[in-house]
């Protein structure tokens, strides 16, 4: 299996999309972070953003992506808030999902799987190897994100307030875990349906909260059945990604449980599927 992981990592770093996605996100991030202060200092724009924010709170289900960095009263930004705002807005998940779709289906789409798939002793090794590559990609993506955010902060001349080290580690680890599991969910969907297009649509639907509208609909049904505070989104990985921030210590345990359950179900499911189904 170690050899297969080596192969997956090798082909991952050789993929053009690996570098293109990292580069594009880094550039977008530097620009948006550096301009954020300027946008917030424009009274009209600030008013519009605040109006949109209040609407978001009232809406039952919102489709689309919303990223906003909260400014402290003295005009400074929290380091963690700066880093996690895009993660909570599902921007990071969207790009990790897009790369995962391209990466996980590449050997099936090109037929490269025929070169080694038949010789694999246990097909779940293939899932493990791809899952490892997703972990590495997520770690690199987060590292790039922190670096590009820092660069954006530097260029924008923002004031940054450092959060406690323990808090930074906690939030980054939990967000990292949730994003890895998100990547695994997308990877498993890709391995099961083996369609770039449908997998990409599902990725976008999750990241852009299209499914949140469906969850909302299901919640209404559950409420009618008697579960008064039904909220399916709370029990999803994407819901936890949007939820987990600086002051989310109380949901740490349940977040880890949600992540582990989704990881086990999807990875096990795709492993079983690969074992039972023909590779080509």
């Amino acid at each position, binding site marked *: 299996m170690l*050899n297969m992981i080596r192969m997956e990592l*090798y082909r991952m770093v050789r993929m053009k999309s690996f570098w293109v996605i990292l580069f594009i996100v880094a550039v977008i991030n530097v620009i948006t972070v550096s301009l954020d202060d300027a946008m917030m200092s424009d009274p009209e724009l600030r008013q519009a953003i605040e109006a949109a924010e209040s609407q978001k709170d009232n809406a039952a289900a919102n489709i689309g992506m919303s990223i906003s960095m909260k400014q402290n009263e003295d005009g400074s930004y929290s380091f963690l808030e700066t880093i996690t705002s895009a993660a909570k807005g599902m921007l990071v998940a969207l790009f990790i999902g897009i790369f995962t779709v391209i990466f996980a289906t590449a050997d099936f789409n*090109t*037929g490269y799987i025929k070169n080694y798939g038949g010789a694999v002793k246990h097909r779940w090794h293939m899932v493990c190897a791809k899952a490892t590559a997703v972990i590495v990609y997520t770690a690199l993506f987060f590292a790039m994100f922190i670096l590009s955010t820092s660069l954006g902060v530097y260029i924008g001349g923002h004031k940054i307030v450092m959060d406690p080290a323990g808090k930074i580690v906690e939030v980054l680890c939990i967000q990292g875990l949730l994003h890895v599991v998100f990547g695994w969910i997308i990877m498993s969907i890709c391995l099961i349906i083996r369609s770039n297009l449908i997998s990409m649509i599902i990725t976008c639907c999750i990241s852009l909260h299209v499914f949140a509208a469906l969850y909302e609909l299901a919640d209404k049904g559950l409420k009618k059945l008697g579960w008064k505070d039904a909220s399916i989104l709370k029990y999803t990985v994407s819901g936890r990604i949007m939820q987990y921030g600086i002051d989310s210590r109380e949901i740490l345990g349940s977040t880890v449980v949600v992540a582990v359950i989704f990881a086990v179900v999807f990875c096990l499911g795709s492993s079983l599927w690969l074992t039972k189904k023909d590779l080509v």
Partner: protein
Amino acid sequence: MSEYILQTHELRKVFGKQAAVDGIDLKVERGAIYGLIGKNGAGKTTTLKMIGGLSAPTSGSFSLFGKSGAELAEVRGRVSCLIEDPGLFGNLTAYDNLKAKCLCYGIKGDDYIKKMLELVGLGEVGKKKAKHFSLGMRQRLGIALAMVGEPDLLVLDEPINGLDPEGIVEIRDMLTRISKEKGITILISSHILEELSKVATHYGIMSKGRLVEQLTAEELADRCSLRIEAVVDRPEQACTVLDGLGISNYKVVDKETIYISERLEDVAYINRELNKAGLLISKIAVNNESLESYFLNTTAD
């Protein structure tokens, strides 16, 4: 006694209601170059996919290197395949494509990859990406990928597709050489029968998912060898005449054709004797059957 490294037993693969492979019993000897012949849709590729571990049989079983069932996993790594068109990462070079598979097989060293590239005539291809390769180059790289790890059984599905005549000769020579020098058993399918006949030591003829016939190259040569073909009005009476002449190596093919495979030089004498017996002979001549016509006759409805 011959050692079979591959034996299938009633191997069957069904897609929906259609049986692509319908209970075949294939036997491949160690060191053989086994040619699987069949028309399009005969079930060759599906058979090779099952043997290559890419697809699971619906029913039946097969053994590789004496292992079957759950034990097959132990020997899967000794089988390598090139099924249909070569599976390549288009954005990677030939070197990178090979390197990825080498890493998967735990093979280290750039020299090995360079040697493999030279073996298939892609030593000078450099940084050119696989998506810019010609069909022939892709095919060569596919063969190189299949050769990684020195498999004991090489499964090749139409490997000379798209190759120019020079490339066909090179690949043919290479397959013969690796089979002899390295003792690699090769299971190869092709619809270019004349080409297959230049390398294969054994043949399996498939039609409509079934294995119609298995024979050695010698047996095939015998069957396609010279013979007297006589078209007479009453074959059963002709048989009595032939028996009277002491000819036993003959075969009634249809309601008026007889193949006689001995005393070819006596065609005029046989003609006279059949005439004497009152038989109406519309044709008698010494002919031989081409591999292609033998194949077409064998797989005819």
